[in-house]
């Protein structure tokens, strides 16, 4: 049990940079929610219940365009399709946990905590299930709470947050730092480069379809390159 507690803190320290950037990111969402006419409580409930930045931003911008309710939900979920991929990747590591724990892992799967956990589980195969879970919740819990609190602060401050803070760019910077350590082999670099280029090529596609198409092609390419390099 002692060592599982240590793993919680390892997850927490690994995710610390995200604690700093997800606050501003949540505030940007809160400001947009305020500008869209949501009250503070609704904005907080939004972040608490959905807890997925990209899907929430997409839903808000569609609401500003007066899109039909069904379209908003379907498109928001299309943006979140990558989460099913995360779920499949985590399953071999955390699948043995009790159902309610897996339900909690599912609720709190975020881009950064998934990436940190995936890297950690792979580099340290001797981890026990309690240690893996402790690491995951350490990486995801504090950031999730800050996302929700940041949303509330943003919705409360509203447009009093000046533009020059460029809060929009905190998250891309953190994501770049997150993916960099994973770029070690030729197939990994090739997959990352392909995903970046294709996401720009497909940028005009609606409903976040560009991302999921770019990701799928890059994933197939990376795995195929790995197979060929091992065969050679």
């Amino acid at each position, binding site marked *: 049990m002692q060592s599982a507690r240590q793993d919680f803190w390892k997850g927490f320290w*690994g995710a610390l940079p995200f604690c*700093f950037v997800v606050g501003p990111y949540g505030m940007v969402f809160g400001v947009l929610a305020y500008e*869209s*006419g949501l009250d503070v409580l609704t904005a907080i409930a939004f972040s608490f*219940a*959905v*807890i*997925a930045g*990209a*899907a929430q931003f997409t*839903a808000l911008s569609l609401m*500003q365009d*007066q899109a039909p*309710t069904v379209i*908003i*939900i379907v498109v928001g979920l299309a943006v*979140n399709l990558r989460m*099913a991929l*995360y*779920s*499949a*990747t985590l*399953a*071999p590591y955390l*699948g*043995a946990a009790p159902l309610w724990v*897996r*339900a909690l*892992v599912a609720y709190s799967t975020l*881009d950064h905590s998934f990436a940190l956990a*995936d890297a950690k589980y*792979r580099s340290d195969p001797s981890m026990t299930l309690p240690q893996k879970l402790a690491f995951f919740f350490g990486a995801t819990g504090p950031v999730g709470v800050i996302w929700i609190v940041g949303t509330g602060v943003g919705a409360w401050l509203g447009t009093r947050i000046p*533009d*020059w803070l*460029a809060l*929009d*760019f905190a998250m*891309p*910077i*953190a*994501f*770049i*730092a*997150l*993916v*960099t350590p*994973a770029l070690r082999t030729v*197939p990994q670099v090739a*997959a*990352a480069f392909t*995903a*970046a280029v294709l*996401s*720009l090529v497909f*940028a005009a596609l609606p409903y976040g379809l*560009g991302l999921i198409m770019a*990701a799928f092609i890059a*994933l197939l390419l*990376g*795995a195929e390159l790995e197979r060929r390099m091992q065969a050679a």
Partner: protein
Amino acid sequence: MNYSHNTIWIIVAGLALGSWLLRFSFLGLIGSKDLPEWLKRHLRYTVVAVLPGIIAPLVFLPKATGGVFDLPRFLAAAVTLGVGLWTKNLFFAVIAGCITLYMVLNISL
């Protein structure tokens, strides 16, 4: 924007339930069953295939500038990538990126 209180809550609830189902899907259904090796090989590329696809449009077509290329944001991204590759340290990379962004934004103002 012109949605009723109830409609907004339906949107929030629909997105919440759907997002959870997507995240739970494989984790919930597969459980501890082992996946075939070819599938695991593909899933090893999830991080490097998804994150760059999220990042690239944010760097090259930022919404804050109306989708127009923005030099400060591009330089900040480049410095973050460089420092990340060099130090292998997430924290240093984020700090270096933020410092670059603010320096260049303020010079160009």
